[in-house]
């Protein structure tokens, strides 16, 4: 399972980053936490994108994960980081499995838009319900790890990075299995896949559910590392757009790409916000267009090109 280069890089790189986090300033640790949390959702979108499916509504699962953490915290007083993470990921996964029965019949723009619609239903419910925090959302208490309340954010960072490493390895392995390989083939020719004897609907359903679990986990980790959830930052359609943006920015080439893309996005946003607070949408939007036009393979295509020319 760990024989290929990607796995080795993920493993060694991940460990190096965990070590680096111990000496890095807080804000860098924060950016890494935000970036890696979000990257989990991108990992799921990457699998869908390779299959030719783009969801413009995965903030639904991201938000479900985040709000599960909030509800667990506020209603049940659950603080354990793993219970929260599993809760968020499982609930999102369950929702994804159920919604998947509808989604697996749709492709292209319809797939993208049905996802948006479903995410907006959740958004409407939360915004209008005072007991769910309406527009304000909730503050979330710091998580505990194995019953211990950590002094700093570092332990949470280690947990997030570890979850990121494990997820990247699992998805990397998944993409090597027979069913995991059914991405480009489905995009290229569904009829042939059916005649080869594999159900396209089942394959898509599985990928969709996986992406929901990952997005839910991402939302849960994001909620914990930020300490706050609210509908506009977690569920609104612009958040879904952001997730797709990072997917395109990252490129579909490798499971490492989402992590690099998410970090680049965090840095881009931080500096756009710092240098031109009035114009950060313009900067993000402009970058988006530039990537779509001039770098369709995303950042990963640059990295692999650079890699080819140096090795």
């Amino acid at each position, binding site marked *: 399972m760990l024989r290929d280069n990607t796995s080795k890089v993920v493993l060694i790189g991940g460990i190096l980053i965990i070590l680096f986090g111990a000496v890095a300033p807080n804000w860098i640790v924060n950016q890494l936490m935000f970036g890696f949390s979000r990257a989990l959702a991108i990992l799921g979108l990457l699998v869908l994108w390779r299959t030719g499916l783009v969801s413009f509504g995965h903030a639904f699962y991201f938000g479900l994960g985040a709000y599960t953490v909030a509800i667990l915290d506020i209603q049940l007083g659950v603080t354990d980081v793993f219970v929260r993470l599993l809760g968020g990921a499982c609930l999102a996964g369950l929702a994804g499995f159920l919604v998947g029965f509808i989604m697996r019949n749709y492709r292209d723009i319809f797939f993208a838009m049905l996802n948006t619609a479903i995410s907006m239903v959740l958004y409407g419910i939360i915004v209008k319900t005072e007991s769910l925090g309406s527009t304000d959302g909730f503050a979330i208490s710091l998580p505990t790890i194995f019953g211990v309340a950590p002094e700093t954010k570092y332990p949470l960072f280690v947990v997030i990075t570890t979850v990121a490493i494990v997820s990247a390895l699992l998805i990397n392995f998944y993409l*090597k299995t027979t069913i995991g390989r059914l991405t480009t083939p489905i995009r290229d*020719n569904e009829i042939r896949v*059916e005649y080869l*004897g*594999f159900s396209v609907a089942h394959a898509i359903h599985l990928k969709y559910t996986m992406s929901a679990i990952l997005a839910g986990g991402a939302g849960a980790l994001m909620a914990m590392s930020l300490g706050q959830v609210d509908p506009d930052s977690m569920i609104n359609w612009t958040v879904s757009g952001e997730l797709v943006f990072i997917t395109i920015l990252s490129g579909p080439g490798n499971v490492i790409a989402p992590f690099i893309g998410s970090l680049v996005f965090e840095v881009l946003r931080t500096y756009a916000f710092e240098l031109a607070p009035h114009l950060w949408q313009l900067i993000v939007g402009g970058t988006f267009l530039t990537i779509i036009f001039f770098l369709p393979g995303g950042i990963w295509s640059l990295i692999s090109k650079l890699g080819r020319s140096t090795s």
Partner: protein
Amino acid sequence: MTESKPILEVRDLLKTFGAVVAAKDINVDVRKGEIVGIIGANGAGKTCFVNMVTGYLKPTSGSIAFDGVQLVGKGPREVTHAGISRSFQVSQVFHTMTVAENLMIALAIAKNRGFAALREMDSPDLLTRRDDVLTRYHLDSYKDMTVNVLSQGVRKLLDIAMAVVSEPRILLLDEPTSGISVEEKFGFMDVVIEALREDEVTVLFVEHDMEIVERYVSRVLAFYQGEIIADMSPKKALADAKVQEFVIGTRH
């Protein structure tokens, strides 16, 4: 050969699209090891017949039994699992992938059913099989080329190769030589038929080219306006008046 039980029994097949009758009174028995040619003019119902047998279209009425198992109501996937494969008039392959990758996916789907689909795909066993198929279908030299850049002929070979890796008992070929140049077509068919004979596959194929029909098939089904007007040996069929008038005569 005649004493063996038919492997495919088609009874009273009818297919209508609104007022249009695409197929009617289709009754055919096919025995193991036969190579059957399906001929007819454009719109005579040949592809419709193939589509019904392979589960792409559901007949309006009638039955299709494969080794005693009823196929009507089954989709392409179930028909494939039952042991019937097909190739396509316009090759249906994965056009952004290489020839080797195309075959590998086909092999993996055929061999890794159920939870085996969650195992790593590139096993040494499958790689050997893949190379074997590549050799038998003369696709070695195109192995690492993306389908996009290949000629129609190579794509059709790949299309057929992908259909046989599941080791079907019946293979339906929809116009295997369409889009292939006159000089290439016999070579092409030699490769295909030889490979199929080795595997003892029963073959039904739709064909316009009477030279191909004469040379490779053991029996001919001639379609005209949704009905079978002749079911006989190729020699007889080509001499048959009705076939000459409605099939060969109108052929372009």
